[in-house]
């Protein structure tokens, strides 16, 4: 359980650590990552022909490099322009005290998030996507549709587009109001789906701290014993007061924390190898600075703002393997698909993303981020179910087997990642009365599922 005393020490460091500008920080990160890549012989280890790594020794070297990076860099606080420093003792203590498993939800919907290892036959938990912009009038229906698929263990909700017709402007009292509103809508969706005890990430509509303050832990609409607090960092090894407000609010509520971040291929970490190492460091930092009970991170490729290309999957898998082999940290890893509903591109991206995480030892995986979360209502329950099926079905495959499968799937979409097929909206793909997919979307789902079975993913026959 996160501690207030520890939090206050972090706040003290945020006000007393070495001074550094944001630009200096980015350049320093780039230089330090380059040095570590050299020191640990990690340069040019990205192998485009094999998007899933199966070299344990290489994954362990990435872990050591990421661990050193986290300690050497510390964490940059955007609001004070100071560095929150960490010692190896701080880090080791934080890692030792991290939970090995989390019991989430209650009743028939209770699940346990457990640490896994690469090629672990125990299936990871399937988490529904978060952050999609969803229209107010279909918000409950869409989440009901997702939650009614029992393959999905945790609900990570979308962002509600409006509150009684008004845009929930970030950082204003509208956002405070929408925090509570979204918690209410999500709770109703779970009740309608017959899963009132399903563990839930209550407030996704909270770009600043206000949404969370307005909804999370508020009596009658959000239960901090059931819901997890979502805390998203602004970047690699970086924090801000917005983030720290959310952390202390979760501590005040006695809630579990799940902390997210992104590591950018092409950004300050540089190449895929640098992004993998920086992601490892950032996962460790989330525990040591934000007291994360679980992490929900991702890799982004800045060239197309997704991660289902070869570089993205390689970095994603490498960091998941490094963490799962060397720590017992829990994570609900995020993947970033760009295809839209009712497209083959989306299902192929989902399959690649879920197989990579499943064989790389992720304890849970969130999926998918349909359409790059870019288009309103461009997400449906069917691809969430598909992700859960593939994620769990791939558990127990070896990394080599997974690699052979993703090698066949990636070429089907990699040339259109910069101009993805955006597909159709929820309203266009579903009967909103019965919550059934259209025949077109269902047939496509069955076709790709059959294709995966033929490629060797152990799924139930459609």
């Amino acid at each position: 359980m996160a501690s207030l005393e520890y939090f206050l020490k972090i706040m003290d460091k945020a006000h007393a650590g070495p001074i550094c500008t944001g630009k200096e920080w980015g350049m320093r990160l780039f230089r330090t990552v380059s040095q570590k890549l050299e020191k640990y012989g990690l340069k040019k280890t990205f192998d485009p022909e094999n998007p899933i790594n199966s070299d344990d020794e290489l994954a362990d070297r990435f872990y050591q490099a990421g661990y050193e990076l986290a300690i050497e860099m510390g964490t940059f606080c955007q609001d004070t322009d100071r560095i929150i420093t960490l010692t190896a003792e701080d880090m080791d203590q934080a890692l030792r005290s991290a939970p090995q498993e989390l019991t989430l939800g209650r009743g028939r919907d209770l699940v346990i998030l457990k640490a896994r290892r690469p090629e672990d036959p125990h299936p990871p938990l399937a988490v529904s996507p978060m952050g999609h912009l969803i229209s107010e009038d279909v918000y409950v229906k869409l989440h009901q549709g997702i939650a009614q698929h029992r393959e999905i263990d945790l609900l990570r909700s979308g962002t509600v587009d409006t509150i009684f017709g008004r845009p929930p402007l970030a950082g204003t009292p509208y956002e405070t109001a929408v925090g509570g509103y979204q918690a209410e809508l999500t709770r109703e969706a779970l009740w309608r789906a017959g899963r009132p005890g399903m563990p839930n990430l209550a407030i996704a509509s909270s770009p600043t701290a206000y949404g969370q303050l307005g909804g999370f832990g508020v009596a009658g609409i959000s239960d901090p014993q059931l819901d997890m607090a979502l805390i998203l960092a602004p970047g690699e090894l970086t924090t801000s007061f917005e983030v720290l407000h959310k952390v202390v609010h979760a501590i005040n509520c006695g809630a579990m924390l799940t902390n997210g971040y992104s590591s950018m291929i092409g950004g300050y970490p540089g190449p895929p190898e640098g992004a993998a190492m920086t992601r490892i460091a950032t996962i460790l930092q989330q525990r040591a600075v934000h007291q994360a009970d679980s992490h929900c991170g991702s890799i982004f490729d800045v060239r197309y703002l997704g991660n289902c290309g070869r570089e993205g999957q390689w970095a994603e898998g490498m960091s998941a393997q490094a963490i799962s082999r060397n720590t017992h940290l829990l994570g609900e890893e995020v993947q970033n698909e760009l295809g839209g509903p009712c497209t083959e591109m989306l299902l192929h991206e989902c399959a690649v993303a879920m197989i990579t995480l499943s064989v790389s030892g992720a304890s849970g995986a969130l999926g998918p981020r349909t359409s790059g979360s870019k288009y309103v209502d461009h997400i449906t329950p069917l691809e969430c179910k598909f992700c859960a099926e593939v994620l769990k079905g791939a558990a127990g495959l070896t990394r080599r087997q997974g690699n052979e499968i993703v090698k066949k799937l990636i070429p089907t979409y990699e040339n259109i990642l910069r101009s993805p097929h955006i597909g159709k909206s929820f309203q266009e793909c579903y009967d909103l009365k019965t919550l059934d997919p259209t025949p077109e979307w269902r047939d496509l789902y069955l076709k790709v599922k059959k294709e995966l079975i033929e490629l060797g993913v152990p799924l139930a026959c459609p």
Partner: protein
Amino acid sequence: MEKKQLLEQLANAIVEGDGKKAVDTARAILEAGIDPLEAIQQGATKGLDEIGRRFQNCEAFLPELILSGDAMKACTDVIKPHIRSEQKDQMISGKVVIGSAFGDIHDIGKNIVATILGGSGFDIYDMGINVAVKQFVAKAEEVQANVIAMSSLLTSTSHYQRLLIEHLKDAGLRQKYYVVIGGAPVTPEWAVKIGADGYARTAAGATELLKKIIQGPPPPLTKTLVVNN
């Protein structure tokens, strides 16, 4: 050193992000009597194009792009005063106020765009992250900007792009500034819907967009310009 070699050296200095070498070469170019406009167009800009190409191919990364942008700005500061007045209309320039929307603490995309635009000859006023609409407008008024560029990484902060345009209209300032928008959740459809003057999907596209906009009719444009490459 010959003209061709000097221009190549300038381009290489930009690619390497070596500000001192870029400035020294710029001075050598001026001393050699080479046309300053040609130095920018055939030397420095070629270097910036090359680093942009490498960035798109994952051969160069954001920090290198920033260093190249800084080197470009340093050398153009040396060269620009020597451009003859009759040549100045061949130089694309303009003042751009740029920042991340209120409530948005993400800045990588915005930093890439600011760097490339700065390197391409625009004067950049980077307001940073979490910038209120009224701060964008106040800065634009203060520096007499041509363009206001707002980035948003979150769907819930992209509403401020619409509010910026409404604020400019209500304050009677819409005809003074081009408004361009971008960011991960921002789409061309959104740009058209809110009446933005332009949208670009990538940083390289942002430069192309601004060059087109600056040379076009005054704001507000009747049709949103979209650069989707």
